[in-house]
């Protein structure tokens, strides 16, 4: 079956829409086709995500696990095996060989991440019950865990944690310290502009992690995974703490108090930020030097914040109150930008929903207009609905300039269709094909005519 071949071909996004040089220096009322529809980069990003979600690798056969099927191994951040037949070597942060699969749940049809720790034997049932607490941790900066169970379908004793799936997500490790990272060759401290950007990004990270920690600590839990390789970047500057609950399960009888673990989170938080600020995963090896660098490169509040994370207050333990009091303006700023982002997304979404309606509308046009069986219909007359619809179709698409040459004005088309869809009271003038008569009609009336004709078709169908 050759059809399968096509699966292996990557999508060629550049063919979707014309590449071409985008026109520059347009006036504010001028648009190109790129400006009218969804921005190419957003679309491409979302399409890539959809593609990643749908991707299957048919040659590899993995078993179904519980209610999850169509497993696809995902450990992409693992170094590629050298030999042709070498088995990929999975990561082992958790002291167990760990595998990550994308899988579809047959109960809800949604795609999840299964993280499997190989060779884990559950001895205390209470350990896995911890996940129940985690399930209720809902924070936009925490990857929600949905389930945890043990299984032997892989031919061993494994524990599987089920997480939300974020297609094309990268870990901060990959983003900042990976071989292809765009931060790779940056040297902070030299370029003012770059520093401002970095500072902005740092605060964004800080606010998000702080928000996550707030929720986690308030739930009586500790994150324990504030590490660059356990935090996902799922969108621009949008991070999520991943793999939560795993340590709680596998080190259930660790014997450390919650307070200790939570205080550890603060320190791990500090380390993470410090290493990203210094653009060096090993910044903590020489903490003093790194802190000096931060002090020199960024405003002092960042350094003070890190000092608080590392050393805590002079008296007592670190608290959320104190932490937030140091970053309240940063929080409010991030809040503001996320609301802005909301607005942008909403306007994009409304545009696309409009397009969906337009497609349905244009299809209705297609169904109604020029139907041969109606051509000889006696009801077809100069006053019939379909006559109106036909003239309107002409009005929308057959504009000409003063020399009679066709005008291809997409904005005109979309404007007319949108008004039609909304059924506004604006009047337009249609002209009969013999140019003898004018018909003055509102969009509302046209909408009614189309609805009537369409429902007539439906009745017949």
């Amino acid at each position: 079956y050759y059809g399968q071949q096509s699966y292996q071909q990557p999508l060629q996004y550049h063919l979707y829409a014309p590449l071409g040089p985008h026109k520059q220096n347009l006036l504010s009322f001028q648009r190109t086709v790129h400006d009218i529809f969804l921005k190419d980069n957003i679309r491409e990003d979302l399409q890539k995500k959809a593609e990643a979600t749908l991707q299957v690798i048919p040659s590899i056969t993995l078993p179904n696990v519980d209610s999850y099927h169509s497993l696809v191994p995902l450990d992409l951040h693992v170094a590629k095996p050298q030999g042709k037949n070498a088995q990929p070597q999975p990561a082992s942060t958790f002291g167990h060989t760990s595998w990550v699969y994308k899988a579809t749940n047959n109960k809800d049809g949604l795609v999840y991440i299964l993280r499997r720790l190989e060779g884990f034997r559950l001895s205390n049932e209470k350990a896995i019950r911890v996940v129940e607490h985690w399930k209720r941790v809902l924070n936009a900066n925490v990857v929600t865990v949905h389930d945890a169970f043990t299984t032997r379908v892989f031919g061993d004793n494994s524990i599987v944690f089920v997480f939300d799936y974020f297609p094309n997500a990268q870990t901060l490790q990959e983003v900042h310290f990976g071989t292809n990272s765009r931060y790779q060759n940056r040297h902070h401290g030299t370029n003012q502009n770059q520093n401002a950007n970095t500072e902005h990004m740092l605060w964004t990270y800080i606010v998000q992690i702080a928000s996550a920690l707030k929720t986690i600590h308030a739930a009586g839990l500790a994150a324990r995974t504030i590490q660059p390789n356990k935090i996902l970047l799922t969108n621009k500057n949008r991070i999520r703490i991943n793999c939560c609950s795993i340590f709680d399960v596998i080190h259930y009888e660790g014997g450390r108090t919650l307070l200790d673990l939570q205080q550890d989170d603060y320190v791990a938080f500090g380390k993470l930020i410090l290493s990203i600020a210094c653009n060096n995963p090993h910044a903590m090896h020489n903490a003093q030097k790194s802190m000096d660098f931060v002090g020199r490169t960024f405003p002092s509040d960042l350094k003070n914040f890190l000092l608080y994370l590392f050393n805590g207050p002079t008296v007592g333990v670190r608290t959320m109150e104190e932490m937030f009091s140091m970053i309240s303006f940063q929080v409010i700023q991030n809040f503001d930008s996320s609301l802005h982002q909301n607005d942008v997304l909403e306007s994009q979404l409304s545009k696309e929903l409009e397009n969906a309606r337009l497609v349905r509308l244009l299809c209705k046009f297609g169904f109604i207009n020029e139907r041969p069986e109606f051509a000889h219909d006696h009801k077809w007359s100069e006053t019939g609905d379909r006559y109106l619809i036909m003239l309107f179709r002409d009005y929308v698409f057959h504009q000409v300039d003063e020399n009679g040459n066709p005008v291809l004005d997409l904005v005109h088309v979309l404007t007319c269709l949108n008004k039609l869809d909304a059924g506004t009271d604006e009047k337009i003038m249609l002209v009969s094909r013999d140019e003898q008569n004018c018909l003055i009609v509102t969009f509302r009336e046209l909408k009614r005519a189309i609805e009537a004709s369409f429902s007539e078709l439906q009745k017949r169908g």
Partner: protein
Amino acid sequence: AILQLWGKPDKIRFTELSNPVEWASVPSQPPNVDLREDSPLSLVGMPYYREQLLSAWPSHLVFEVGKPPPKIDSDILAKQKLHDYVGYAPNPRRTRRYQVESTKVQEKPGQVQAPRFRSEKALQGESDDRIDENTPWSAVAGELRPFDVPAMYHKVEIKYSRFGVDDFDFEFYNKTNYSGLETHITNSYSNPLLQLLKFTPMIKNYALHHTARNCLTETCLLCELGFLFDMLDKANGQNCQATNFLKTFSSISQASAMGLFEEGMPRSNQSLTGMIQSLNRFLMEKIATDFKSCPIEGRDESDMENALITSSMTCIKCSNCGTETMRPSNSFVRELAYPKKAKSLGSFSTVLKHSIERDGQTRGWCDKCRRYLSLTTKKVVQDVQPKVLMFNAAAISPESKMYWAEKNWLPREIGIVVQDKKFLCYQGTELNKVKERNPNVVVYELVGLVAEITGDQDTPPHLVGLIDVSFTNPGERKESSWHLFNDFLVRPVSQEEAMNFAPAWKLPSVLCFQQKSESNVVDNSWTERLDTGLLFKEIPLALMNTTCRTLSIQENPTPGTVVAIDAEFVALQKEEIEVKADGTREMIRPSRLSLARVSVLRGNGEAEGVPFIDDYIHTKEPVVDYLTLFSGIEPGDLDPMQSRHALVSLKVAYKKLWILLNLGCIFVGHGLLKDFRIINIHVPKEQVIDTVNIYFKPSRQRKLSLRFLAYYFLRQNIQTGNHDSIEDANTALRLYKKYLEFEDAGIFEQMLNN
């Protein structure tokens, strides 16, 4: 299936490698999805692709957003017939089917750009002044759609540069000898009606003769009309303002109650036509009353009223008891009433007859039956015919517009006969016959009319006057001379143009007819009968703390008497600016100034330099800025309760100047143009000696200040504190005398060059 072939066996050949027949592919199974109203369309997938998608549009195409929706021409809308909510109309074929209109360009047909400022012209030279300036106004009929307003009917706007109103090129709009009236004055919507009255000889004569008398009523509009008409005559084509008339008018509370004021009136509440018609009615009655208070020598006090009024009786009949009562129903202005269900459009005279004899049904009180009943009314015109017949056209209803759409419907002449309580009206050839038959027929001629111009929705309506100016030419009226008076735009037009209408944009509001016998009766004898008493009236002693000394009878001014003048002003309204969305700033109204003090000094004789007028003007409107530094006026100076000065009304102060003007005095002063403008008086050039102009060197392009001239030529420091009009007038006078000295010695040029 079986395929049978017949043929010779040796001829039969089959191809070894036959091409397969092309069939359509077996249709692939469509994806099994259910597309409901809200399911995403991406549920139906895309096949893999290796080339650019068909749906891709070329990226170089540029589309424009934000265009206003195209407008449907109003004449098409008017002709549409509705059928199932769809309007059908014949296609006028102005453009191709679905031709794109460039709605981005918002230039209306016939719009004329304002001329460049005088200062700009001076800078850039007069190079393009030779262009035929008729071009912008001449509308070619073919270029205009039936509802387009020709250029000269568009509302005209004054533009102010940083040099103020003097920089505006009024001449661009008016090259005739008939002065236009400026806008930007409260209630200046009445401009065309004022013009119409001015060119009606009857009214003009009454007004000027009245004004020359000693009427001191502050609210006398007839006086103000007289001042205005005199100014318009003297200006001889230069732009004028009806400032003082409108100021007086605006202070009459009765007019406010009638809704005659523009201010605070939402545009939608009353149509402009309605306003001018009410104004017409108000004004006629008001001036007739004004006349009574101070009639012209040797005339009866109701003389003017009789000339204006159509007296008739209304016969009211109760439908119940049948009792008839007669009531006089005199009116200065008749409203035209259009027969509602006429089979064919009647002539103007039939409409006129219908309007005057109008029978009506009203509900009213019957004294006899002692209750409200329906009453029938009938009008009976008596045998008194006014000299001037004013009509309000009231063309609002669709049927009335049908009449006015008719070509040449409005006659030039009508004849009226009142016989046996019957009102008869004739026009055209019929009238000519009647003239021969009946000596009692009174012939009226159309003097002019006020018309409302309604542009498209974006521009508010405004009024223009279309007037035959030949009526006020002294002597015989040879041929008519129609002019359009569109505020300060005045242009000659053809009679056909003036007397025809287009319901889409031009409809009459007020029509003025005058008895033919009164045409060209221009009575200028008032100049000889000028009541000059006001000049010699003693100033109240109690407030004689100035150096001012009233003229004695011996000092009676005569033509050529030199007087020195200076005036001071206060601001009643701050300047107003407009800031557009693109940030450009434009002054739309300069600050509104009002005369606060005027000083006039003797220019010759023993008492040279001694003031004989030093009037502070009682200002009722709130003053926003006393401009004390320049005016020397301080808060309280103009308030009779607080002032140290003898306050007079604006009218008194004005009238003194007007008398001096008409006695032929020569006014000496510095920068008088602005002073006269604000005083609202037009002084002919021959009667003005302005030290600004005397001491002006064209090569230096700079006007010198009074202070500088005083220092340089008189070695005197003036204006060390606040300005003082006596000092300033005196300085100007002495500068003038100095000039005469220099001229005498022949060294003026030399002195000026130093």
